[in-house]
């Protein structure tokens, strides 16, 4: 089996085993063992929930350091539109794009522009009406994985289109190759607010290979950009995107861009789960399109961002206003980047991953489930988390799968100790007849 790559990792030294993260993980992918959190690879969807929850900063997302761009002769940055919202008092995207170039990139292309192209393509597929309703956006990779793991029956509803970052990476490479730069010299780096997008660049599931060569976290680049931005007086005209593409960073942005009527935009993974439950129950097939984003506020609330998502949202409004007032600027950067023909569709279907199942054989799975119910019945059902599993039910599941013991439950352990103590007392009372003070002869007790 191919090894599973995850961006979300644990810094073992910082983890104190507090069990905060296990309780909020939407796929119950974390357990605490020997005082440290442990992520189950096959269940993790890289949503970054645990990164946000952990007050000890023991959960982090692995990304490439900025230096890694030097592995390539021609360095290209493709920033996510969320980057524009992170800086106080900066509303002109050109300033940020210019600053990126000063950090050492030879070229910058906005992912927001590719989002506009993806939007156009999505409209076409939706108009054909071949995908079962409600069509679910594939833009948030954490949600795609969530569906794959928890709602596999909804896989046919997902829009089978590649992400804007992937599209941009393809356009960029083709364009630069046509301009005479060698393919192997080009390094395309995505500036990401998102851990799941790191993972799906390293290990894409629905395309053969990602054109993104590295992912740099928005947090890291932010720190390096701040001093540079201050020095920029006359920015280069690098912006190509309009408000439509930039707005993708925000919940509802994709649906708004496509102009699809009758759509739902939902953010925050717990809210998304509620909506997907409804879809699975057949209750939303009168809705055309559902945009689900794992983070509150959409990518503006991504785990690798710096700014609070509500503040970012306010900035987004200001950036949009600025763009409205400066419509001519981005028209100036009109390069034939998108003349290339690239494939915008998934090249292979998304597979179901039945990671929740107890056994491959239904009969055995039923047996295990019966045992699970029995064990669960014994447990106190208060979901305290002391056993290292998120709920008593999850502990019961771990026990039947041979990954935990019933004594891992502190209450069960206490019960057992008490039973043993009682047994010991009873035993202790059983004196050998030779020294027993009890005279059973005749039934009268001689004291």
């Amino acid at each position, binding site marked *: 089996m191919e090894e599973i790559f995850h961006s979300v990792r644990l810094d073992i030294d910082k983890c104190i085993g507090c069990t905060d993260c296990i309780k909020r993980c939407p796929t119950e992918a974390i357990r605490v063992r020997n005082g440290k959190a442990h992520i189950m690879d096959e269940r993790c969807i890289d949503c970054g929930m645990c990164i946000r929850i952990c007050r000890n900063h023991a959960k982090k997302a692995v990304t490439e350091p900025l230096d890694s761009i030097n592995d390539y002769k021609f360095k290209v940055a493709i920033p996510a539109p969320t980057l524009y919202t992170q800086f106080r008092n900066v509303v002109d995207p050109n300033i940020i794009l210019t600053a990126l170039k000063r950090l050492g990139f030879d070229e910058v292309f906005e992912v927001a522009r590719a989002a506009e192209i993806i939007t156009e393509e999505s409209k076409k597929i939706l108009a054909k009406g071949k995908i079962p309703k409600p069509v679910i956006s594939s833009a948030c990779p954490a949600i795609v994985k969530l569906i794959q793991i928890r709602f596999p029956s909804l896989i046919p509803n997902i829009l089978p289109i590649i992400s804007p970052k992937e599209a941009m990476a393809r356009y960029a490479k083709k364009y630069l190759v046509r301009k005479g730069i060698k393919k192997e010299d080009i390094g395309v780096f995505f500036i990401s607010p998102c851990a799941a997008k790191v993972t799906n660049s390293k290990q894409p599931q629905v395309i053969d290979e990602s054109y993104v060569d590295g992912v740099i976290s928005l947090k890291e680049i932010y720190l390096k950009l701040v001093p540079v931005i201050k020095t920029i007086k006359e920015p280069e005209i690098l912006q190509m995107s309009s408000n439509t593409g930039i707005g993708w960073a925000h919940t509802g942005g994709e649906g708004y861009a496509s102009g699809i009527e009758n759509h739902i935009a939902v953010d925050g993974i717990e809210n998304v789960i509620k909506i997907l439950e409804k879809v699975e*129950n*057949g209750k939303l097939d009168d809705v055309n399109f559902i945009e689900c984003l794992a983070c509150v506020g959409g990518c503006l609330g991504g785990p690798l961002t710096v700014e609070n998502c509500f503040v970012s949202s306010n900035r987004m409004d200001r950036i949009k206003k600025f763009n409205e007032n400066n419509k001519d600027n981005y028209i100036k950067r009109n390069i034939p980047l998108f003349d290339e023909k690239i494939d915008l569709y998934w090249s292979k279907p998304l597979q*179901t991953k039945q990671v929740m199942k107890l056994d*491959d054989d*239904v009969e055995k*799975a*039923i047996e295990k*489930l019966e045992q699970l119910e029995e064990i669960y019945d014994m447990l106190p059902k208060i979901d305290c988390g002391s056993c290292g599993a998120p709920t008593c039910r999850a502990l019961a599941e771990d026990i039947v799968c041979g990954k935990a013991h019933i004594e891992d439950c502190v209450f069960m352990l206490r019960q057992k100790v008490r039973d043993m103590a009682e047994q010991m007392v009873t035993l202790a009372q059983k004196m050998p007849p030779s020294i027993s003070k009890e005279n059973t002869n005749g039934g009268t007790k001689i004291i």
Partner: protein
Amino acid sequence: MKIHYDVEGGEFISAGVASSKLKKTLKQLGISPNVIRKVSICMYEAEINMVIHADGGVIDVEITPENIEILIKDEGPGIEDLDLAMQVGYSTASSKAREMGFGAGMGLPNIKRHSDGMKIETKVGEGTKLELIFNIK
């Protein structure tokens, strides 16, 4: 294996709890997504029906390697005209239920369409018993 659920009446907000739980169980058994979806649609519909019309009831599920049998029982008012209730769009839901978006009259026909077998017994004033079957293989 057998599973039992109690469904409370009148609780529109929490309706769907039993179907959610069953769904989770079926996923643990590795039942195919297609079957899970069919079960979800029927269970949810039946659960909502029970909440709206019958002040709750009980659901008993039996799972074998071959099929899933669901028995849904309530002691509600019963269905007066079963033929009518089986027609798409027919509903006797209260205005309160309708205001909440339930009772669009899709219940029984929808259940019939998505299950592999359906049997219904109903008596006015006594309640309704609905038996559903789904093939696993």
